[in-house]
């Protein structure tokens, strides 16, 4: 079989797998968040934590719970990382330096999983599994909770509440993420991913003594992908054979990355009582995703860079077992979602390939976006699209029976400005510092791309990197840490305020003048708005980096 046939069949198999679970998983998730019943284990959790699960929260209370939970998580995780030498199974490693722990704790709590450390030489097993992996679950559950709260904003009529954050968080974790992670972990174990609690030693055929690393990898690998976190147990992330041993686990991990963001569009449609709306959102995501995949795969497979031409193929930074097709597919999935796991070195991709995955993040993580974050991100863009359509025909814009007025547009405008501001200001400040040139792993335009990629990844909560850049200086640890924190919490608070303002409204009846938002015309408008917004915002920055490189 040729590489092309194998690559195309792999993509077809992936789409088939996603299609099989789409309806049952999406509807199951809708039931999780609409059911009035609590499971016994959930009642136990609520009793232990003193939460009243039947109390409804106002938008402000919901937002304060999210922010409070995130801040408490950061403090606890920083404590674990700083004190890891005192924890069991620390592998005789010292506590993390202060600013590295600051950056890492924010990184995992915000679902970013940007990594300024190398896992195998920095962290013990307890810090990984009881510190980082716990946040892999919880940060994903927070994203789902916020998405569900926004959906409730559309479905509720003259209501002052959005549900209960603690209940949404607990249900998302215990009813969705944990069961799926358990099944996925067993699949990965069968595929050859390791799960042990000790390092061992070996003497290689050449007579060198090497450590054969151990670690609770399978349990962490599955949730890292499923929860769109992306933080590797090892420095090489999913390129490491212990995290991703073969082409089967590779496809399965890509499936894990995409399954929740895609199925959540069904959850959206089901909760709205308008399933075609879910499909329309998925359609817009799909168009953007397929475009990115086509461009990236073409660039990598046909070796569109000078170095790849010299080498004979774009195999620098790629594993033999995945090849160009399996690496490009992973790269597009991981940047279109907010995952950031990598199975190849994005820094070594061709300018068009690397530029496309960078652009994929700049879209705002909506193709198909992070777990939960993709849903609220694309709904915000949908509001912007109906607003622009409304301006064109001179009607008050509406979406899903809710009027879009100045108040909603204020939240939407602030939402769409927050991340680009963090990316561009962060990049600008970093580039203006003399020391940044020394931190770059590559000179010239590609060095600029490394810095731009770093702030784009941080502010969009992705976590992947053009890894040649050295980000261990206090400047990068602090500024990237703040970009991750503000890039997560400001949009979430705005989304919850937006949801609250929608829930307060009555329902506008559908008339002949209502713009249908579940038809292909609107899908086209939505894609157009996303592409134009992203293009206008980032074109100058992209022109200095990947575009200049591609034309070089």
């Amino acid at each position, binding site marked *: *079989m040729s590489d092309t046939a*194998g690559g195309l069949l792999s993509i077809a198999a992936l789409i088939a797998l996603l299609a099989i679970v789409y309806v049952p998983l999406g509807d199951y998730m809708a039931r999780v968040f609409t059911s009035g019943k609590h499971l016994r284990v959930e009642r136990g959790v609520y009793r*232990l934590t*003193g*939460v009243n699960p039947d109390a409804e929260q106002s938008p402000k*209370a919901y937002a304060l*719970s999210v*922010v*409070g*939970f995130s801040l*408490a998580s950061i403090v*606890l995780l920083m404590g674990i990382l700083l004190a890891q030498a005192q924890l069991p199974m620390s592998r005789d490693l010292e506590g993390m330096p202060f600013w590295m722990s600051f950056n890492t704790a924010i990184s995992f709590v915000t679902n970013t999983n940007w990594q300024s450390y*190398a896992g*195998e030489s920095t962290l013990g097993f307890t810090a990984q599994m009881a510190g980082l*992996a716990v946040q892999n679950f919880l940060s994903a559950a927070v994203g789902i909770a916020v998405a569900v709260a926004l959906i409730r904003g559309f479905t509720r009529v003259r209501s002052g509440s959005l549900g209960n954050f603690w209940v949404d*968080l607990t249900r998302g*974790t215990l009813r969705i993420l*944990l069961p799926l992670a*358990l099944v996925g*972990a067993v699949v990965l174990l*069968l595929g050859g991913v*390791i*799960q*042990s609690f000790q390092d*061992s030693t070996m003497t*290689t*055929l*050449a007579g060198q003594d090497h*450590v*054969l690393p151990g670690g*609770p990898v*399978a349990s962490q690998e599955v949730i890292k992908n499923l929860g769109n976190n992306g933080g590797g147990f*090892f*420095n090489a992330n999913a*390129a490491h*054979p212990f995290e991703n041993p073969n*082409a*089967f686990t*590779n*496809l399965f991990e890509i499936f894990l990355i995409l399954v929740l963001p895609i199925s959540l569009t069904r959850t959206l449609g089901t909760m709205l009582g308008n399933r075609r709306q879910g499909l329309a959102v998925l359609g817009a995501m799909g168009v953007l995703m397929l475009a990115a995949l086509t461009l990236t795969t073409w660039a990598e497979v046909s070796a569109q*860079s*000078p*170095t*790849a031409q*010299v*080498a004979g193929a774009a*195999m*620098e930074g*790629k594993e*033999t*077992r*995945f*090849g160009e097709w399996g690496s490009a597919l992973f790269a597009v999935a991981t940047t279109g979602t907010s995952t950031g796991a990598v199975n190849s*070195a994005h*820094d070594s991709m061709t*300018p068009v390939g690397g530029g496309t995955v960078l652009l994929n993040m700049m879209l705002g993580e909506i193709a198909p976006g992070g777990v939960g974050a993709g849903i609220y991100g694309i709904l915000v863009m949908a509001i912007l699209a109906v607003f622009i359509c409304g301006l064109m025909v001179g009607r008050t814009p509406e979406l899903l029976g809710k009027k879009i007025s100045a108040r909603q547009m204020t939240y939407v405008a602030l939402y769409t400005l927050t991340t680009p501001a963090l990316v561009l200001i962060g990049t600008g400040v970093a580039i203006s510092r003399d020391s940044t040139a020394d931190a770059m*792993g*590559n000179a010239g335009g590609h060095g600029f791309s490394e810095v731009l990629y770093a702030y784009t990844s941080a502010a969009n909560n992705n976590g992947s990197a053009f*890894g040649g850049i050295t980000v261990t200086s206090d400047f990068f640890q602090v500024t990237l840490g703040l970009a991750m924190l503000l890039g997560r919490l400001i949009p979430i608070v705005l989304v919850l305020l937006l949801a609250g303002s929608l829930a307060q409204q009555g329902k506008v009846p559908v008339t002949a003048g209502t713009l249908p938002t579940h038809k292909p015309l609107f899908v086209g408008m939505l894609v157009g708005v996303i592409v134009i917004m992203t293009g206008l915002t980032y074109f100058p920055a992209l022109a200095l980096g990947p575009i200049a*490189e591609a034309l070089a």
Partner: protein
Amino acid sequence: MISSTLSDLARQSVAALRLLVVFTLILGIGYPVLVWGVGRALGDRADGQPVRVDGQVVGSALLGQSLTGVEWFHSRPSPNDYDTLASAPSNLGPLSPDLDAAVAERRTAVAETEGVAESAVPADAVTASGSGLDPHISPAYAELQAARVAEANGLSLATVRSLIDENTQGRVLGFLGEPGVNVLTLNVAILRATA
């Protein structure tokens, strides 16, 4: 207003800390230990598939090794010399003159070692992988090394080629991924064939 918000935030944070403790027990300890228990039922698969020679662990079938002797099959270049505690790619970019220089140098070295023209050297032989621990080389690079390894070990070329075949992992299910030759298990097979 602000003080009431701050006190609300403080109260939420206390609830959050209690929830975090409970979830750390469930997700951070219970869950990985349960997965570990399942892994124990799979033998040494969950330990990284150690490869043994005379009962001694010489490596993992999943991790490449740096073997430079004329009697061995050679792995791909690695930025960290196959250090199992320092997995990393080179991160050299698409326009990197350093990468071009490294590729040219490696190509000359491989062509010389194998006694072939530089144009015959495949891409994986001159590029570093994503992990620096790639266990595989392409079938083309294995074939390129077959004659040298056969001669150095006093084996027939046919024997070495059949060992290459035995240690080649094809596309999974016939279509997933790319075929690769496992360098460590192949070298162990060569070792056994000469014993």
